[in-house]
């Protein structure tokens, strides 16, 4: 049952139409940031207002929604966004990646390979990948128009010259369809390869910065690198203490005053769907 007094999906129909038009342009321009009239939402910027507006504009009564925050379904941000959509749309929600038709995410891509018919909606704090190198919006617009991304290559080169390797471990810049430089949002670089030729549609919403962008299905997404320094996604060299996975992305936990460390899967649904380690093994 939806909350009385709200339109389906919270946003009014004019706003949805405006966002829907921006989404269609975004899909036709893979990786290009389309400006849109971001609305004030009932939670502050930084809590996923861009992703929520994208989800609100695409969601329908038949959808099943999953929301994750750093891979987990049970964190504050994920729980409150899921409850919000349950109240303003009444759609079914789920923790299971396989059952969801729309997955809104903050800072992770699910471990399970997504399929056609699913839509992955990213919450994006800063859509402009060149922002730390060139703060002027007028200038970055021109750089995107000219596909002039030398500045980013110099930054990666300087990392290698100073540290021997690229030190960016999250929000690692990608080139979409060999044309636009794009921020994949602050997902770990470990997740970057999953964006490449993903069968699901990927939509990105930045509420404060008022930008929407997209990666259509089966589109080439290449992490920037050099021939002699190929892109290497990093992962903690450990196994999950709950399920024993050596393939998933891990969170590090400090579990006592002595600094003892445990690693657990960041993707809670992936971890829960695997058989737990036997007690005796510990």
């Amino acid at each position: 049952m939806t909350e009385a007094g709200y339109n389906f999906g919270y946003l009014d129909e004019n706003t949805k139409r405006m966002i829907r038009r921006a989404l269609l342009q975004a899909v036709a321009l893979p990786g290009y940031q389309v400006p849109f009239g971001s609305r004030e939402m009932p939670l502050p910027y930084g809590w996923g207002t861009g992703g929520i507006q994208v989800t609100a504009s695409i969601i329908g009564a038949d959808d099943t929604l999953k929301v994750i925050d750093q891979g987990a379904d049970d964190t504050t941000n994920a729980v409150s966004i899921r409850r919000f959509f349950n109240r303003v749309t009444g759609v079914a929600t789920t923790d299971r990646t396989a059952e969801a038709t729309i997955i809104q995410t903050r800072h992770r891509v699910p471990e399970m390979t997504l399929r056609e018919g699913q839509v992955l909606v990213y919450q994006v704090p800063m859509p402009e990948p060149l922002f730390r190198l060139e703060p002027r919006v007028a200038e970055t617009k021109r750089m995107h128009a000219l596909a002039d991304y030398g500045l980013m290559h110099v930054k990666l080169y300087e990392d290698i010259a100073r540290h021997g390797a690229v030190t960016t471990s999250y929000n690692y810049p990608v080139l979409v369809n060999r044309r636009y430089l794009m921020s994949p949002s602050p997902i770990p670089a470990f997740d970057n390869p999953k964006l490449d030729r993903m069968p699901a549609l990927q939509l990105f919403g930045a509420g404060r910065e008022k930008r929407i962008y997209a990666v259509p299905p089966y589109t080439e997404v290449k992490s920037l690198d050099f021939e002699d320094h190929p892109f290497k996604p990093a992962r903690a060299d450990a196994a999950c203490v709950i399920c024993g996975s050596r393939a998933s992305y891990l969170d590090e936990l400090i579990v006592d005053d002595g600094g003892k460390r445990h690693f657990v899967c960041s993707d809670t649904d992936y971890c829960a769907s695997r058989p737990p380690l036997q007690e005796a093994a510990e």
Partner: protein
Amino acid sequence: MISAGFADPAQDSQRSFRAVLEAISRPGRIFALPPLAEPPAPLRGALASVLLTLADADTPVWLDAAAPLDWLRFHCGCPVVAQPGAARFVVATGAMPALAGLARGTEEEPHLAATLLLQVASLRAGEGWRLTGPGIEREHRLAVAGLPADFLAQWAANAAGFPRGVDIVLCAGDSLACLPRTVRIEEAG
């Protein structure tokens, strides 16, 4: 007498939009829209639904038929312009206007391009053109009846200007397929 639009605007426009979003994400695949009770002639169901879903006071529309103008103004409230080059949505039920004459955005703001909503005689999947590009795993096949003879030449010129360029929504009856400017089209062979 102005015929009805969507029976349930919030739900019906969402269903139509998801079909268009899927169609532009998977170029050349044909998607069926929920039938519209009374599309105003000569508009058929899919084209009328797309207008109800996307057009409003912010989007100048150009139309090659006079009959649905009252319907369009009443339901969408959109400005109707005299030149296709000034429109955000270009609606053609007869001859296709030249793609080169439509708004194609700028290098810095390619999202200011027009979308051509073109009503064609028929769409058939699995035969005809070979489509490749973003959104397509290997290739999609699409046969379209009712396009000008020089369409592929016009399309090649449109695609060559990327990121500038026009996107096309091909509508036939209650079904549609999209050609975003990224898609490459080869003649069947």
